């Protein structure tokens, strides 16, 4: 069984974000970029499944500018067998990404797709669900534990939901998105970095995959959240209710 893992190149989690002065987005020039942490967890899970003998190949997919190849190289250094780079300029929103993934699925025919639950730049938490919808595949999102049953072609997924832990059984092929506690991703050690140099990365354009990247969404403005104001000590419950109603207007 082949596993496809989608990995996204995002601003490194440790970087202090600044909004561009023209308010069209976040400053990404000369800013350190890395693999989205949830995507690392997704890739790690795929590698573990392969190492346990339940999968034959792990393919890492990334979409975006030419520098995505760096992210793919990291993925290959972690242990992925092959890389796929879909080169596209400009912002790619989840629906577009999902459509591209669907096209790639028709080419690669994986038995399982694993993605991070969300990217730390846009926090959308949509791509995995949309892919499952487009493919009509079952989905197990926010996975904190994954166990595959090869004979029965099932995936048992434990999900972290608001009420606690929910366990689902999915028929393969399926889509899984990973949550924080699923695993601890491995480092890319030097021998693997060297091996990764010879692993192939296939290039596509969205046009070749018959996907139109034009989006229905348009970002109008990006601003910093308002600075946190100091708190106020109130003298009574009545005063609290009054402020909630008339100042904060939440009741």
């Amino acid at each position: 069984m082949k596993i496809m893992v989608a990995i996204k190149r995002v601003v490194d989690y440790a970087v202090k974000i600044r909004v561009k002065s023209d308010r069209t987005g976040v400053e990404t020039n000369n800013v350190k970029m890395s693999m989205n942490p949830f995507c690392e967890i997704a890739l790690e899970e795929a590698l573990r499944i392969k190492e346990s003998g339940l999968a034959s190949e792990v393919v890492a997919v990334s979409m975006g500018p030419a520098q995505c190849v760096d992210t793919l190289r990291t993925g290959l250094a972690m242990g992925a067998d092959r890389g796929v780079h879909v080169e596209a300029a400009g912002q790619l929103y989840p629906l577009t990404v999902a459509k591209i993934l669907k096209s790639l699925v028709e080419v690669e025919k994986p038995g399982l797709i694993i993605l991070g639950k969300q990217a730390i730049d846009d926090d959308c938490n949509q791509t995995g669900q949309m892919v499952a919808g487009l493919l009509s595949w079952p989905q197990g999102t926010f996975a904190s534990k994954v166990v595959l049953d090869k004979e029965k072609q099932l995936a048992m997924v434990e999900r972290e939901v608001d009420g606690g832990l929910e366990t689902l059984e999915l028929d393969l092929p399926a889509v899984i998105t990973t949550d924080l506690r699923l695993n601890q991703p491995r480092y890319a050690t030097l021998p693997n970095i060297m091996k990764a140099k010879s692993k192939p990365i296939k290039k596509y354009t969205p046009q070749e995959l018959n996907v139109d990247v034009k989006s229905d969404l348009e970002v109008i403005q990006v601003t910093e959240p308002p600075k946190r104001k100091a708190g106020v000590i109130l003298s009574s419950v009545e005063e609290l209710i009054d402020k909630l109603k008339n100042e904060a207007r939440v009741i």
Partner: protein
Amino acid sequence: MQRLLGARSLCASFFTKKQKHSAAFSSTSLLFDDTQLQFKESVGQFARENIAPRAANIDQSNSFPQDVNLWKLMGNFNLHGITAPQEYGGLGLGYLYHCIAMEEISRASGSVGLSYGAHSNLCINQLVRHGSPAQKDKYLPKLISGEHVGALAMSEPNGNLPMLLLGLSTFLLGKLPDVFVFNAAGSDVVGMKCKADRVDGGYIINGNKMWCTNGPVAQTLVVYAKTDIKAGSKGITAFIIEKGMPGFSTAQKLDKLGMRGSDTCELVFENCFVPNENVLGQEGKGCVSFGLDLERLVLAAGPLGIMQACIDVVLPYVRQREQFGRPLGEFQFIQGKTADMYTALQSSRSYVYSVARDCDNGKVDPKDCAGVILCAAERATQVALQAIQCLGGNGYVNEYATGRLLRDAKLYEIGAGTSEIRRMIIGRKLLKQQ
């Protein structure tokens, strides 16, 4: 926008505003190709997550962490045997990669960096270069995996007994006792007094060694002793000593100014029998002058890491800390200081890695090997001093890393040949060469 703090690890919980270094700051990327950059990133991440959070504690407690075996962790990351052949578990790569690893580990903790350098280069690389196949088979695998720790001992202590005792024993014995040495070998390596007398099947070693990094914990030590006192530098032989050999013991762990936690001690040899098969290289081919060049090269990456750590602390601080209504970083004097720190680091870095590349290509020039550590070490001390100054009063407080960085940096002007010795080496060579 939610920040994903510490997605992967403990680093979030250990990141205080003081330690959180700007991951966006990158090095002189022209020095490295893609793979080397990737490796630098990877080791940097490993060191940031596993070593940096423990650095302050290592310094305060003057010992390696108890809760985790850093040697094994680094071994799992293939860091020990970078220059060792693959058949023993090494990576079969060159000094450039070794320097990269040394720099990133030093950046996280100077003490761990020094111990790592002593283990992976002073011990392991000596075995790689001069060991017989049997010796390599016996010692390398465990050293490379991190199960065993390695060390190297060359320098010796001064006699620090009161003159009275010396005089008394001289009177009683009629001569100066062999074991009470003074004016013994610090910089004057060839003047070492540690003796190895040939006996049936091996040698008997008597003497002391001082300032042995990793001495207290090492299982395998490369020790230099005089087999022929009259033959000067050609009378020195290297031996492989194992912990537990009868007659070999370690004395007090030294209480050092810096590099605290990098366990250092005195070695004591009292009629220690060493079999013939433990001679490293050949008798008299003391390896005194070779090995020291590459030792200096790899260790030179230590101060590079410390300088980088200084910048990692200073930049976020001067961006944030405000006085007179503006961030410190907007004042010219501070900009001058950060510029000096940055250029000191970049120029030292260029020198170190260029020489590393030369050495990998077989061109080992002792002048440059001495030059890189002379340069990097002295700059590192100055950079650390400026780092303290940039932090002002906070730089003087031990809660911030800058004090430790200074104390750690200073060692590199002394160990692996003092700055004075390095200058002598370079000056003499320049005089002799056409």
